[in-house]
């Protein structure tokens, strides 16, 4: 009788042992998030940010909601660089942002941007130029839709090409229909070459020089990696940069105008990492 009970309890114990860490983990994330919310409601933004950071570390996956709250907490305490980084993360599709959340994140991001510009103007720091139509073009070229467009146009052009070759093999083909097909083939081929090359360039730029955000409020950029090197200029927190080179602990950050300087790796947060490199 006892042996039967023991055998029956063993699977339950196994299930309990397997699931308990996950449950505890989930509770810890929610506890940290709730604690952050309580601190934020009380206006204690540094404490709120600290709890949100803990929840972020425990969660281990992108969450637009958490990024939004964390970015807003940083924005409220004047940490414009970190605020900008997390609010941008909140807009990442991998965090499942809702429409309302994305709208609020954009609104807060715009305020953070204006404040950063103001601060840069008065502290003699350099900030990246505001987004222009060209940036939108580059952003669009990077979008998956352009990749799809290039693939569809390429494969349709390929099909037309195959059909045209078959027509040339077969006697008595319709010349007029062939001319139309040729025109369509050249048009689609042109679309494919153009969109594929531009999309490839934008993907390559993201791969070789990933985008990042300056996290500190005012980060000094040096002529070389090392705190003993000469300071060349200062970057305003929240500026978008591209990381063009790395050494242990330091990255060479290039701003939109081409000016570049070495900054500590901890002072920039990468936007396009698996879930955004943790700053």
């Amino acid at each position, binding site marked *: 009788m006892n042996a039967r009970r023991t055998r029956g309890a063993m699977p339950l114990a196994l299930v309990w042992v397997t699931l308990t860490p996950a449950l505890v983990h989930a509770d810890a*994330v*929610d506890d940290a*998030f*709730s604690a952050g*919310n309580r601190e*934020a*409601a009380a206006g204690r933004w540094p404490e*709120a940010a600290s709890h949100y950071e803990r*929840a972020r570390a425990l*969660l281990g*996956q*992108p*969450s637009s*909601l*958490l990024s*939004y*709250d964390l970015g*807003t*907490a940083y*924005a*409220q305490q*004047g940490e414009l660089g970190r605020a900008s980084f997390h609010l941008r993360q909140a807009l990442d*599709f*991998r965090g*499942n942002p809702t429409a309302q959340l994305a709208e*609020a*994140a954009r*609104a*807060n991001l715009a*305020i953070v941007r*204006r*404040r950063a*510009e*103001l*601060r840069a*103007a*008065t502290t*003699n720091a350099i900030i990246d130029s505001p987004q222009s139509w060209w940036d939108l073009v580059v952003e669009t070229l990077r979008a*998956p839709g352009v*990749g*799809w467009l*290039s*693939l569809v146009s*390429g*494969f349709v*052009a*390929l099909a037309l*090409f*195959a059909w045209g*070759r078959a027509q*040339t*093999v077969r*006697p008595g083909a319709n010349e007029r229909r062939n001319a139309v097909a040729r025109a369509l083939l050249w048009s689609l081929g042109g679309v494919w070459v153009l969109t*594929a090359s531009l*999309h*490839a360039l934008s*993907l390559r730029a*993201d*791969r070789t020089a990933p985008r990042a955000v300056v996290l500190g409020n005012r980060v000094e950029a040096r002529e070389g990696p090392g705190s003993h090197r000469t300071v060349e200029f200062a970057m305003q927190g929240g500026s978008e940069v591209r990381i063009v080179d790395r050494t242990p602990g330091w990255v060479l950050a290039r701003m939109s105008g081409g000016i570049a300087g070495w900054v500590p790796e901890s002072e920039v947060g990468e936007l396009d990492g698996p*879930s955004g490199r943790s700053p």
Partner: protein
Amino acid sequence: MHRDRRRFVLGTLAAAVALPGVARADGLVAELRVNTTELRVGDELELELEVRREGSGNVPEPELPAGLADAFEVTQSFRGGTGFQITLGGGGSSRTMHSSMSITAIALKPGTHALSFAVDDGGKKVVSNVVEIVVTGAEATAATPARPTTGKPTAPDGDVFVWAATDKTEAWVGEQIEYRLDVYERSLLSSVALRTPPNFADFYTHDLPEGEGSVEEVGGVVYRVRPGMRRALFPQKAGTLVVGAPEITIGRRRRDRGAAVSILVKPLPAEGQPKAFSPNNVGRFEVKAKVDRTAVKAGQPFTWTIEIAGEGNIALIDPGPWPELRGARRYDPKVDTQVQAVDRVRGRRTYALLVIPEQGGRLELPAIAMHFFDPQTAKYEVARSEALEVEVEGSIEPAATAAASSTATPEPTVESFAPIVEADGLPREAPPTRWMTPTRWAWATGAIPALFAAIWGGTAAWRRFGPDEAARRRAAARRIQRERIDAATAAVETGEGFHAAIASLLHELAVARAGAEATGLPRPALVRLLNERKVRPEDVRSLEALLERCDAARFAAQRGTADERRATLDDALALVERSSLSRGSA
């Protein structure tokens, strides 16, 4: 005889080596040699003084020629020391003791100068030969020139000297003065260095370009001028201010000290002096103002840029206090200075003020007036920018603007952040994934040209190695033949269309065997043509019989039974597959 002669020669040689003093015993000679006897004022003269004595005894060292200092300036002298020389020949030997001295001097006085030197030989004065030097050109004084503190040197000062001067000896406080320090050298000296730079304790200074070297004639003497230093000086107080004397080193041992320059600096006149006037506002200036936007929304910052340009101490220019703006916040300016130092210090200093309008309507930016003292006219002047206006749209809450001040940390509170989003817990949805990853896109994009190439190559190979026109025709005929047989087979039981299919099959077979000219021929002509084409007669007869059977069935409504049709089909197939009709046809 030979032995006696050899003994005499050896004995004489030994005596000459062992006892040279015995051969020539007395005589002290002083000799003066020069490289030239005719030269111009300022030219170099090289002299060689030598004292020698034939035989033994001390040789006194030569002294400077007596008249040399009157008409020349000695720039270099070098004693060659003493030595001896043994001379063999003439049936004996001699030993000569000698002492020498080399002198380099620059001619200062025109005329004919007789030069000689004397040495004391144990109380007896020995005078050298006299060399007459003819010097032409204008006279130059050898004394240290009086160095005025302005302009350029007027009298030569040896082979190298340092010249320090200012462009004026009297100035106002804050007025720009040019100080220059040049090294004048007769020949190119590589080892001239500034040992003690001048002291500019009472001046604000700014470096000016040193400029290029040049060649100048100073008092009839040609000098190479090496620019050493150029500075713009701005006196910071009134009184007699002194720029310390510079000193240069020439080689290791020589030094030359320039003149200390004194400048009488007058205080700026009290009459007409504006209140809190900065003594750095001396020169000539103009003020301009501009805004980067003429229409903004309330709360939207714009930049109000004031530019002061002109000649003077632009780096320390004082524009005075900035005006307060009604209905707008103004932050401390971001200052940028661009100095152009060519012959004078001039440039522009830009003040970029960030302004955030808070009230709608027309924001007036007043004219900026800057007082300055013009040293040319010795009067105070005013440079004034134009007043500007900016249209402001909308308005922001006054409560939000109350805390702001013109020098506060720029953290406007006019905009509030969207609140945080509270939730019971964080959603644990798996992050969405997109099929279109960069890697997949790259593979798919790369596949397109590969497939293009494959299709291209495939069709090209098909053209090259695929069937020709005749083969394609034969294949088409076989396909039609198969269709007819299938139709006939399907109609065996019903008989519907059976004979028409068999007739068409056989007729096409006969036409294909007879060739293109058989097309459209009536049956007798077709039969004749088949006979001409060497078709076996029994096959032709069989064809005729089958065709007639088909005609009878089609036109005389004699379909017959299914077995009869099956037999007809078998006969037709035998004709198609095995007769001489099928050979050479499709």
